[in-house]
Structures are given as C-alpha cells and as structure tokens.
C-alpha cells in the first residue's frame, strides 16, 4: 500500500514541504536572533563608551613618590541608559571597572560574581569585545590606562521573546504542514481517481467478459488518450476472441456432424442382423462422412499452418497455363455432370511458386465456379501477365453473390446459401484456404459479382513472390484487403 503512487507522491510532497517550512523557519529565527543581539550589543557598546567617558580617574601628579591612594572612581550610569535598560532588577544594566592593578569597582546593581575579563594580546579601546555569561550579555571595553570596563545586562527578556518566537514558528510550521499535506492528499486523490476507475474497470474485464469499456468522458486529462488506447486494444481483443469463438464453434460443429453420422450409422447397423446390401450402405455412409472429415481436417491444418506462417512453399518455375489446363481437365467430369462449358483463354506465362498450392487454388475456384453455376452455364478462365504480375480470373455464369456478402465469403465456414451448400457439400473452407495460399505467395484475391449473372474471382500474383504477413488468426479479412 505504501509503495503505491499515491503514497510515493504524498511522501515526496511532505518531504519537500517540510524542508521548505523548516528552512524558512530556521532562517527567520537566525536572522531575528542575530538582529536582536546586534541591537543589544550596540546598546551595551554605546553605554560602555558613555560610562567610560564619565568615569575619569582623579588626576595623579607625576613624580610623587608618596603612595597616594588613588581616589575611587565614580561609576555612574546615565539616567537615560537606566531608563532604557529598564529599572527592573533583572533587566537592569550594570557596570564593573577593573583598574590596571586589579582593583574592582562596580555600579549599584552589578552582581558580585562578574569575573574579570581575560586579557588578550592586542587590546583596542575602540573595539569592544563581547561575551555571554549565562543570561548575561556583556561588553568588555579595554581602558587606555589599563584595566577594563565591563558593561552588561540581563537578556532574559530577549531570550523569552526568542523562545516565544520558536514556538510560534514551530506551531505555524506544523499548521502549514498539516494544511499542505491535506491539500496534497486531495490533489493526489483527484489526479489518481481516473486511474483508479480505469484500473477497476480493467480488473473487471476478463476473457469471458470483454464487453466492458473505460469511461472516456470522465478522463479529459492526459489520461484520456490512455483510456482510448486501452479501449481500442479491448475492441481488437474482443473482436479476436469473438472470431476465435465463432471459428471454434463452427469447426466443432462441422467436425461433429460427420462424426455423428459415423457413430449413429455404426450403432444402428450393429443393433440387429442386416442384409449385405444394408451393411454396404452403412459402410458407404461412414466412408462419405470420413472423407468429409478428412477434407475438413486437411483444410484446418493448412489454415493453421498459414496462420502460424509455417506454410512450406516449394518454389520452382512452372508453366502456369499448363497447370490451369490440367486442373480444368481434372474437373471435366464434374463440369459435364452440370453441363457446364469451361472456356480457357491462357497466355503463355511462366511463374515461380509452389505448383501444388497454385493448383489447389485453381481447382478450388474452378470447382466453385462449376458447382454454383446454373445447369448449362459457362466458366471462363483467363490467364494473363502484365508488368510484374500474373493475373488469373475465373468467371462463372452462376447465381452470383449478394453485394453485402462479398466481404464475408473469404471467412472460414462462411456460406452464402446454407441449404444449397449442404446439398453441394464442401467444407466451407475453400475460399479461406485459397486466400491463405495466395497471401503466402504475396498475392491478392478478390471477387466481383452481379446477382443472377455470375461472379468473377481474380487472383493477382507478383512475379517476384514475397509472402504477405499472415492475417491475425482467425482470418476474417474481406476480399481485396
């Protein structure tokens, strides 16, 4: 919890705020303290000068050998100073004078324990020294005649003011810190709320429930694009899952149907003693169903390999016209059955590719053109080579494909007319396989159709084949993409 962005942000915010408040407070404190003691010192120094001037020792004539006791110097603190320092005993200023010989004189309020100043090397009467003694602050003024004048006063008042200032600063600082942190928390909450909403939405989304979306309206900030990106990703994911589900359901349905036929037929045949003809019919039914399953499994395998980009192509140059002719020859019986005429208009074209796969595409398109034709119809196969492209067109005179369905005919298990497809048979994978094989050769396949007049499938293959990247699984791409 404390490793979250929220606590991280708040931690940094608190640290910075604390630093600012502490820095500001301590600077202010130090500055005020310095100013205050400078003032006290200046006062004391001024007073010392004044007292020094007034405290003149009595004149002592030169040459007199008779020891004449030096008269007591009078130390008097001027009224103005007394007033200034205040009459309060604690605050009252005091002065102490030491002569060269160590004799000590002091003013009225001077405490007894004021120690004599330590002499320093170079005494300068114009430059007083200062010292702090407990609550007392004292100025030490060296005298020209030797000895020192010490003027001091109690600074407990200033100390007290300083203490009060410290408490005020600490209190204000804490207040600022608390208000700042509360504000920071609110800001962090506001900034992170859309993220929380997004993550809870994302959490609720699973493979079985991909329909939820993040509310983009509520995230107008920098998070808006992120939400949109996530939503787009979810759209694609849902699409892929949906296609995958449909594909799996279709594949399982298509596989189960022949399996059901086989198992039911066997169970029925074994239920009682049958005639030879009945057994033969049962076996024929099973063989038919097995054939259908084999075609289905082979088709699914081809598609799965193509999806994984594992389709192995044995590329070699071959005569395309001959290959198309052979395919047409192979489908001749089927065409005769439907009384469909196949017209071939083939240019002399050599192309490098997998001849087996190419033949598979041609056979598929041709058998579709025959099966979905009208009785006595025509199929026209045109092969031509333009600059760098081999174009194969298979046109029929069949029922045609409704325009809205053309985009879907390359989808796996897609059937335009389901009842008719059942009669005709087929796996429902033919065109999807064609598309995969053409894509693997770097080509395109498209369909144009006029309802009632017929459909034309056009395959374009580049002379120099570079495989197109396989479309995402499962292929649900429309024609011409």
């Amino acid at each position: 919890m404390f490793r979250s962005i929220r606590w991280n942000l708040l931690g940094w915010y608190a640290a910075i705020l604390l630093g600012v408040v502490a820095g500001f407070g301590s600077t202010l404190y130090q500055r005020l303290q310095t100013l205050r003691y400078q003032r006290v010192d200046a006062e004391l120094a001024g007073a010392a000068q004044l007292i020094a001037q007034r405290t003149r020792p009595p004149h002592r004539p030169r040459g007199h050998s008779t020891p004449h006791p030096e008269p007591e110097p009078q130390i008097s603190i001027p009224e103005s100073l007394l007033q200034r320092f205040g009459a309060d005993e604690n605050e009252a200023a005091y002065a102490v004078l030491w002569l060269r010989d160590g004799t000590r004189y002091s003013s009225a309020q001077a405490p007894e324990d004021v120690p004599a100043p330590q002499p320093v090397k170079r005494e300068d009467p114009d430059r007083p020294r200062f010292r702090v003694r407990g609550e007392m602050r004292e100025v030490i003024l060296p005298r020209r005649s030797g000895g020192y004048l010490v003027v001091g006063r109690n600074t407990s008042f200033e100390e007290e003011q300083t203490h009060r200032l410290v408490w005020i600063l600490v209190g204000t600082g804490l207040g600022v810190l608390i208000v700042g942190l509360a504000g920071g928390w609110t800001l962090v909450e506001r900034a992170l709320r859309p993220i929380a909403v997004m993550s809870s939405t994302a959490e609720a989304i699973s493979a079985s429930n991909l329909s939820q979306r993040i509310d983009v309206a509520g995230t107008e900030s920098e998070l808006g694009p992120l939400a949109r990106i996530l939503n787009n990703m979810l759209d694609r994911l849902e699409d892929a899952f949906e296609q995958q589900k449909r594909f799996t359901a279709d594949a399982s349905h298509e596989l189960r149907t022949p399996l059901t036929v086989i198992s039911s037929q066997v169970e029925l045949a074994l239920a009682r003693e049958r005639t030879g003809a009945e057994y033969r019919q049962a076996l024929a039914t099973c063989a038919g169903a097995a054939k259908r399953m084999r075609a289905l499994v082979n088709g699914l395998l081809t598609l799965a390999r193509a999806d994984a980009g594992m389709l192995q192509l044995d590329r070699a140059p071959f005569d395309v016209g001959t290959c198309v002719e052979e395919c047409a020859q192979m489908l001749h019986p089927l065409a005769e059955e439907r009384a469909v005429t196949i017209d071939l208009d083939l240019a002399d074209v050599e192309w490098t590719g997998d001849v087996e796969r190419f033949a598979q595409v041609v056979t598929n398109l041709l058998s579709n053109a025959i099966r979905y034709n009208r009785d006595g119809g025509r199929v026209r196969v045109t092969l031509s080579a333009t600059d760098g492209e081999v174009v194969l067109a298979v046109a029929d005179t069949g029922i045609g494909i409704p325009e809205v369905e053309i985009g879907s005919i390359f989808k796996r298990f897609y059937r335009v007319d389901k009842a008719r497809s059942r009669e005709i048979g087929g796996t429902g994978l033919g065109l999807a396989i064609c598309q995969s094989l053409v894509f693997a050769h770097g080509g395109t396949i498209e369909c144009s159709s006029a309802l009632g007049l017929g459909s034309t499938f056009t395959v374009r293959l580049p002379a120099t084949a570079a495989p197109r990247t396989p479309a995402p699984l499962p292929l649900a791409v429309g024609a011409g993409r």
Partner: protein
Amino acid sequence: MRVLVVEDEPDLRRLLEQALREESYAVDVAADGKTGLYKAVTWDYDALILDLMLPGMSGWDVLSRLRATKKDVPVMILTARDGLADRVRGLDTGADDYLVKPFALAELHARLRALIRRSAGQASSRLEIGDVLIDAASRAVTRAGEPVHLTAREYSLVEMLALRRSQVVTRTELYSHLFDEEDDSFSNLLDVHVSNIRKKLGKDFIQTRRGYGYVIE
C-alpha cells in the same frame, strides 16, 4: 408414437429416420426450419427432434414460433452446439431436452421414451394394467408373467392407450399418432390391430366407445 425429425444433414436425417422406425415410431422428417415448423404445427406429434443450425429458419426460431402457437409437444434439441449458453437458451426457449452431437442412439431412444412418458404424466417406464405388464424400455409385454409377442404397430397402440389410461382416445388421434406420412392405407386398419391385441391380451383389455374411440380402463 409419432415423431418429427428436423435435421438438415441428409445422412443423419436418413439415419435418425431409420433408427426411430426400427423402434416402431411413426417418423416424419423435415430438411429445413420452415418445413419443420409447418409440419410441427399441422400434425400432432408425440415428440420433436430439432437441430439448431438449420437453413432458412434456425432451430431457435422454429422452437419459439412453435411455442407461440401453444403447441406443447415435447421438443428435444439435437445439435453440435455444446456451449453452456446454447444449452440454457435452448431449454429456456421451450425445449424439454438437449442432446449434443455426437450422441449414442441408445441414449436418444431412452430420452425420447422419457419425454413421451413424462408428457403423458407417467414417471415409470413400467405400466401395470390388471395382469398385463408393459415395459416401455424393452418394449416387452407380459400377461400373468408370460411374455406376449406384439407386432410393432400393436405395441404402439397398446402403449399409447396405456399411457392415457382411462381416457378415451379417438380414432383420429390414434391415426395421427400411430401412422406417419409414408404409411400406406393397408396398415391403417385400426380395427384389425385392435382385434389382434384383444386376442393376445384378453377380450376386455381394450374397450370400444362407439362413436368416440378406444380406452384401456
């Protein structure tokens, strides 16, 4: 007992028809949803076997439209769609049973018997009428412990009357439930079947209500 099979896969349709006929059902078939719905609404069936993926009109539509006409014939969905959502939807749309392909014929038969039995208000597959015992599972009839051989038609007639014990079943009803579209008129001689049954199971086993029909008391 007359059953309608709606299935678009030709091989499976043929197989189901044959299997059910061998269990002495009268069987009608339909290859698409529209025909299936038409037949289901037009005739009285004892049960309906319905595929879901049908050309023209899906099994869902057939079922919901059938239920909208207040036909309460028991419906068994027979489909390759094994998803939970499909099974729930199927039963909620008004199906009485749901069997997933591939299936065992034995199970199909058992479920069909249960459906028909239940819709007649019978829980047990064994019916006892006096000293006659009818076992619907094995389609065997015994009288005072002695097995009695009935033809498929005779058995169907007995089962139908026994399931509706003490109710008078009209001749029209018997016709529509015992014979399908393909039965020729020679096998339709109801009186012949009834008299044969009386020979085997006792004179008073089936009673005639003149002008109405027959009843097993």
